[in-house]
């Protein structure tokens, strides 16, 4: 295969993994904007999506179309319980305590999944066969289209929610100024809970649509979560288009790096990018620097 085709191939697969990173990244941003917390357990919701779908299909023999919404629902429930049990009791804690508690939560969820299921990797069936489609000399799996399609729909829904619904507007108000939002009658605690619910739902769906491509196991959440965070950092912790672009940039760079340089160092590429962005432009590629208030 000539180089041009190869690069096209890498670009296409980079876009679909990038879309996944974007969805996870938006999950990080929603919680960060509502609470100022970086939820280290975000990747576990992604893992739960894939593993729960698999569990529902294999153990309860549910068809795929029924297993997916149920899995999202269950993962969302975990997100809700997590917020109630771990985050709410610590509402006034230092950032270090919050980092520690979300890490504790992520380990706990991962460990419990390992006990309930096992340590093996599992494959989820592709949504509509695995007959590759040829596009200009590159082959694309139908699953890639599912990923891109669902991502576009989710991002659209997300935008509509934050701009055109009362709850969405209330959540934005909380992220600008929780105290003021509380004074005009917005239940800030409920908005925080809602942010966890939405991120868990988005994260688990991302985990479900990517599982047929990359396999799933109890520990996939770590890497996916961290890369989603990279996307969010590139996008300046925005819950909109900048994070999507961040995800796509990351996905494509990683795919090109893995293909043209070395597949062993694929994961390192994402973290080198993360560190460079944090060092040079911690406000993200598109954000303006913020002055610190004392």
């Amino acid at each position, binding site marked *: 295969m000539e180089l041009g085709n190869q690069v096209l191939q890498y670009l296409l697969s980079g876009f679909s993994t990038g879309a996944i990173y974007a969805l996870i990244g938006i999950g990080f941003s929603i919680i960060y904007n509502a609470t100022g917390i970086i939820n280290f357990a975000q990747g576990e919701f992604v893992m739960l999506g894939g593993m729960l779908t698999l569990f529902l299909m294999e153990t309860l023999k549910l068809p795929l179309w029924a297993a997916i919404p149920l899995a999202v629902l269950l993962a969302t429930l975990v997100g809700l319980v997590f917020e109630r049990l771990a985050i709410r009791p610590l509402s006034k804690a230092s950032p270090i305590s919050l*980092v520690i*508690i979300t890490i*504790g939560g992520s380990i706990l969820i991962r460990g*419990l999944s390992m006990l309930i299921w096992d340590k093996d990797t599992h494959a989820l069936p592709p949504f509509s066969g695995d007959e590759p489609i040829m596009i200009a000399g590159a082959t694309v799996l139908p699953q890639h289209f599912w990923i891109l399609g669902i991502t576009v729909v989710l991002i659209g829904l997300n935008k509509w929610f934050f701009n055109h619904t009362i709850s969405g507007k209330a959540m934005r108000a909380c992220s600008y100024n929780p105290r003021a939002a509380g004074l005009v009658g917005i239940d800030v605690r409920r908005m925080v809970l809602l942010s966890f619910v939405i991120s868990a739902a988005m994260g688990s769906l991302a985990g479900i649509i990517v599982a047929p491509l990359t396999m799933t196991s109890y520990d996939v959440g770590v890497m996916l979560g961290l890369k989603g965070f990279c996307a969010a950092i590139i996008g300046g912790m925005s819950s909109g288009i900048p994070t999507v672009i961040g995800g796509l940039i990351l996905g494509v760079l990683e795919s090109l790096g893995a293909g043209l340089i070395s597949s062993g160092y694929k*994961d*390192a590429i994402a973290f080198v990018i993360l560190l460079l962005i944090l060092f040079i432009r911690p406000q993200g590629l598109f954000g303006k620097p913020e002055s610190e208030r004392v």
Partner: protein
Amino acid sequence: MKKELIKYVIFAVCVLLAPLAFSGNYLMNVLVFVGIHTLLAVALNLLLGYAGQISLGHAAFFGLGAYGSAILSTTYEWNPWLAMLVVALAVGGLAFAIGFPILKLKGHYLAMATLGMGIIVYIVFNEWIDMTEGPSGFSGIPNLELGPLVFDSDFKNYYLVWSFVLGCVLLSVNLANSRIGRAFRAIHDAEVAARVMGVNARLLKVQVFALSALICAIAGSLYAHVMTFIAPPSFGFNISVELLTMVVIGGLGSIYGSFLGALLLTMLPEFLRFMHDYDIVFYGGLLMLMTIFMPGGLVRGIPDLFRKIAGLRNKKGGAHA
């Protein structure tokens, strides 16, 4: 200061006499690892507990120390002590260099950056097969020697590792009670205020980061020579989290607390062998419970608990009377 000295002497005597009770026992072997973990936990605590800067990548420095020592002393046949010294200084220097950009970050961002650093180093251990032997691990590392004395038994390794621990604890206790230690705490509580008072916060944070990395590297060198075999999983993200757990459980900002955390988390899995696969659940649950119910760690939490119980009892007594 006198109180600190008495505490230290009691600690040192206990450490030196412990082998009398456990000698020949398999516990000696566990105690060697308690020592290595104590070094790591104290190092992380200097950074996290005193200067208030979180790191989720400390296993990287531990690993760099171990691999550095292993490669120099085995592949290049350096004198192990010289290798240890050179590696410790190199890792400290490296941490100093990356400390400037990394410690500019705060809170969650710092956590993520250090985590990213840790993962990059872990990937290099796995992928740089020519140097590190990759996932199959690096074997044949020689034991340390001191003249005719070869550190090849648990008993000898115990004194080797714990003499480093005693040195490190003395250094840390002194540091924490010095002018610099007070500056750390000032940074921890209110960085901007500390700066206004003339504390060079930026430089101090980088210095403590470098010192902490240097101690971890020494712990890594010791680990390599004690184990004579090392592999990447011993230096992954889970280890960084385990260290964090030790520091949090023991108590942030307490050197002896770090020892307590290291002792507890190294011994527990030994006693609870049936927990084999459950230990990850256990760590996660423990981290969450401690953060919610005992944010000061064991060293502060246990006395508090006693005071609370005593208080309750007094109240009850009062009501009856």
